[in-house]
């Protein structure tokens, strides 16, 4: 049966619209419900946004990773990091991210040993990073165009507040030496600047299974969602970790095993800096502090005048120098 173009559109619309509507409702309802549920602390407000079409990130699919660790080797090579052989003096076996290691493959094993998954740990490059909010003078900064979070030594005091503020335990402090550094993944920003022939980070370049890929957040999120849609139920809660977590991150994760089990904590959907909004409100335009200061000075002046008068009276009586 031949179909005119008009008919075709009609059919398409008939088929698509309910799906779209259902989709909208199914997205909107939980969102609305969640928004209602959330107390204000955990609202989804963001202090900072990125241009998603330019913000760069990674997508790591734990189901594709074979644990070969070639990304770790390449990462050390690109970033000119010394191998961390401190475990025994021989083997390069960092137990966690540290100032030798910007990228680490970890292994999750269930207690009974029946289940396992790899996990690649490096900076999440949050859209609104906690570390950057914590940093006093801007030792941690976010590239305006790419959104890459990087460490700028001349502004770093070495206070390690970034380590407290990062819910993912990413920034590593150099505990040895008189001139310590904060070491974290910078998406191979420096190697790529030094050598323009390098077009992508070391880890994505060498990954033999494309378990980790590099691109703009927009593309990566679309790809992640495509994978989830293509195999419903394959990924944990059909969720892309990092889409909303901690206000959204530029590094996205897909995993079959629960995200909390492989080391991605449930941090809520509010960005880390937004938890401080009440404190910031107290300082808005410095109105409150200045008002308080004025009041206190006014009261103190009045009381001080009385007190001074009292002191002079006392001196008349005793002949002792008054004390302030």
């Amino acid at each position: 049966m031949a179909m005119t173009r008009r008919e075709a559109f009609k059919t398409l619309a008939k088929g698509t619209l309910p799906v779209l509507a259902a989709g909208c409702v199914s997205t909107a309802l939980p969102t609305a419900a969640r928004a209602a549920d959330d107390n204000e602390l955990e609202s989804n407000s963001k202090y900072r946004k990125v241009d998603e079409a330019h913000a760069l990130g990674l997508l790591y699919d734990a189901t594709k990773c074979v644990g070969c660790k070639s990304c770790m080797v390449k990462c050390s090579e690109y970033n000119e990091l010394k191998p961390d052989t401190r475990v025994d003096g021989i083997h390069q076996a960092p137990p966690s991210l540290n100032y030798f290691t910007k990228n680490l493959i970890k292994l999750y094993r269930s207690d009974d040993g029946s289940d396992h998954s790899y996990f690649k740990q490096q900076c999440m490059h949050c859209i609104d990073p906690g570390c950057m909010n914590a940093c006093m003078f801007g030792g941690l900064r976010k590239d305006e165009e790419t959104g890459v979070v990087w460490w700028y030594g001349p502004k770093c005091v070495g206070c390690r507040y970034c380590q407290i503020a990062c819910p993912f335990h990413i920034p590593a402090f150099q505990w040895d030496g008189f001139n310590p550094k904060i070491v974290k993944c910078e998406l191979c920003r420096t190697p790529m600047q030094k050598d323009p022939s390098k077009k992508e980070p070391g880890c994505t370049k060498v990954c033999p299974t494309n378990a980790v890929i590099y691109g703009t957040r927009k593309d990566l999120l679309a790809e992640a969602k495509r994978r989830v849609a293509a195999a419903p139920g394959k990924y944990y809660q059909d969720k892309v970790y990092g889409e909303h977590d901690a206000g959204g991150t530029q590094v996205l994760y897909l995993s079959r095993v629960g995200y909390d089990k492989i080391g991605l904590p449930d941090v809520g959907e509010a960005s880390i800096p937004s938890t401080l909004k009440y404190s910031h409100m107290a300082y808005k335009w410095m109105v409150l502090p200045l008002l308080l200061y004025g009041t206190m000075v006014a009261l103190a002046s009045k009381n001080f005048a009385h007190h001074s008068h009292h002191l002079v009276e006392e001196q008349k009586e005793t002949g002792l120098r008054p004390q302030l």
Partner: protein
Amino acid sequence: MTRWERSVPVYGVPVLTRGFWALCALIAVGLVLTGYREVAGLTAGISGMTDPFAWGLWKTFNVMVLTGLGSGGFAVGIAAWVFNNKKLHSVMRVALLTSCLAYWTGLCMLGIDVGRPWNFYWVVLPWQWNLHSPLLEIAVCMSLYASVPLFLENLPPIFEYIIYEFPKWRSIAETCESVMAKVYPFIIGLAYILPMMHQSSLGALMVLGGKRVHTLWQTPCLPLIYVWAAAYLGYNCVTLCILLAKLAWKRDVDPVVMAELNKLTVWLVYSWTAFRFLDIIVRGKFLHAFTDGYFSILFWVETALTLGSAYVLSTEKGKKLSTMFNAHLLCAVGGMIYRFSPTTLAFSAKENAFYFPAAAELIVCLTFIAIAVLGYLVAVKKLAILPGSNEDWMKMAKYEESIKPGIQLTGYAPADH
């Protein structure tokens, strides 16, 4: 019965006692270790800090806890000058001195703790500040407070010392004194607003710690509860200093002022506890006070120490000096544990991570406490800090004049206005 009318130095006691030299020995060891830390970094031998527990004793105890104890200058000051509590003027100098020492040793400790202190100079360039950072607020306000208002507030005893001991410099010191008297309200206004800001920001620091700080402590109100705790800790510290002065140098206590200190401490602790419970209940986390094992116990230990002490202080028994001493001490311990909890005791960085300081770290921590104690011991013997009566002053003057002929400590007629 004694009435405190003015501050009187501790007299007739040597400065260089055996305790003085013992403290000096500890400080020498600690400073050598500090030097080693500057060269070798915060290595495993020096500190127990690790990446998940990036803040150790130096920041969490020397700065975040002990400046709470040193908040007397601001807590007693507000009551005296802003709320016009005249009884408290007599203990102001003790409060200011303890504050000054706690803050300066705390700031030194901060400088030793940070890894790249040479970059701290950005703090004087406001356009380089990240205004969102609670730590910046602390860095700016705390160093500003310690170096300007708190420093100026501690100058009058030194001016007096110069006036009495160095006649050559007398006129300059007197000029300084009168200038100070003119701007004093503006200074003390600053001396109250700055600590209010940074003592609360010390709490705000850990708000960024998120869920790693146990839910009984983690709250958007953490800054407010933190500064509140600092207030009664300041009172605890002042009271303890006065009671120890009674023990060590037989200084008489003024019952009226002591009763006032007790009363304010009691109400501060009561209101603090009430606010804390209210916050936990409103957030719907009160059940955690019973279900979370170690954390629940810690919570009740804090509450019992502070609330129990406050209760004892409010009773008839609390008027006995020994009971008062015990109660203020335990209350201070409770408050200090509270201030220590969000960063360390109730901070679960990672599943398998814990923090215990290294021996060297502890010695350096104790060293800077020792420096403060040493400074206090010297200051109260040289300067008019501890409260006393006019009669005490006369006795002191008689003693001083007998050993230092020519010194004039009495008989000053008021200047014409």
